């Protein structure tokens, strides 16, 4: 199974892929409306907001965790 290079989500069905295009390496949540992949800044914002919304963490703690998670993903390594 392919994993999104930008957020790590497993992409199981066609619907999970950006633009429903299975040749893409990133998922629909990591795509901009025009289908291109979000930038590091955009993804960091998105992930931080998601962690706050679902786990209720403090903003700085959430951003820190998001940075740490992104560091391990192929799209953002080093």
């Amino acid at each position, binding site marked *: 199974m392919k994993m999104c290079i930008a957020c790590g989500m497993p992409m*199981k069905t066609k619907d999970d892929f950006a633009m429903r295009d299975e040749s893409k390496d990133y998922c629909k949540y990591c795509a901009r409306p025009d289908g291109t992949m979000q930038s590091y800044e955009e993804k960091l914002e998105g992930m931080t907001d998601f962690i706050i919304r*679902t*786990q209720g963490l403090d903003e700085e703690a959430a951003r*820190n965790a998001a940075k740490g998670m992104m560091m391990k993903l192929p799209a953002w390594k080093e």
Partner: protein
Amino acid sequence: MNKRQEQKVKTRKLIIDIALNQFAKDGLVTTRTSDIAASANLSHGAVFAHFPTREALLNEVIEEFGMRVTKHLHELVEENVSMQGILEAHLKGIEEYEEFYTRLISEASILPESARNTLIGIQSAISFHMLEVAESEMKSSKLIKMPFNLMFNTWNGLINYYLMNKDLFAPRESVISRYGQQLVNHFMNLISIRGEVK
């Protein structure tokens, strides 16, 4: 892949499997890599050839655990799953690695930052599945409308409390197998709109 690379991948996988058990048994902070090496029948140096630091090994093990613990949730995606189904799948994943998970949540605040982030990432994957279902069931008036983070934290608070006090609740057996269904039913009662609970 040639034979040598194949062997390398195999050994790496073996170390992760053995380490997962050892960390579960002896604790995430206190397990020694030399004990992991001994259990895997490898030299201490062989372990370090695959994982340069203890922290790197611990991170990989937590990540592997995360993949396994969320497996049942990922599998449910295509089905029309209910909130109760999500909670049950969450517990099923935990039950398979109950000892390791209990260590992980008990030691979370003293783990290296990178390990802590991996745990938040696992929770993120779990919440992702729960959020979708919760939102749709709140909309269809099956569930009481509430901030999702509070719903998620209340659920985790409940199960983690039982797990972290295993010695009081289920000293000689699995906490989840003994209380899991009861906790799911109780939580569903708390969040359901009356009349909808069976």
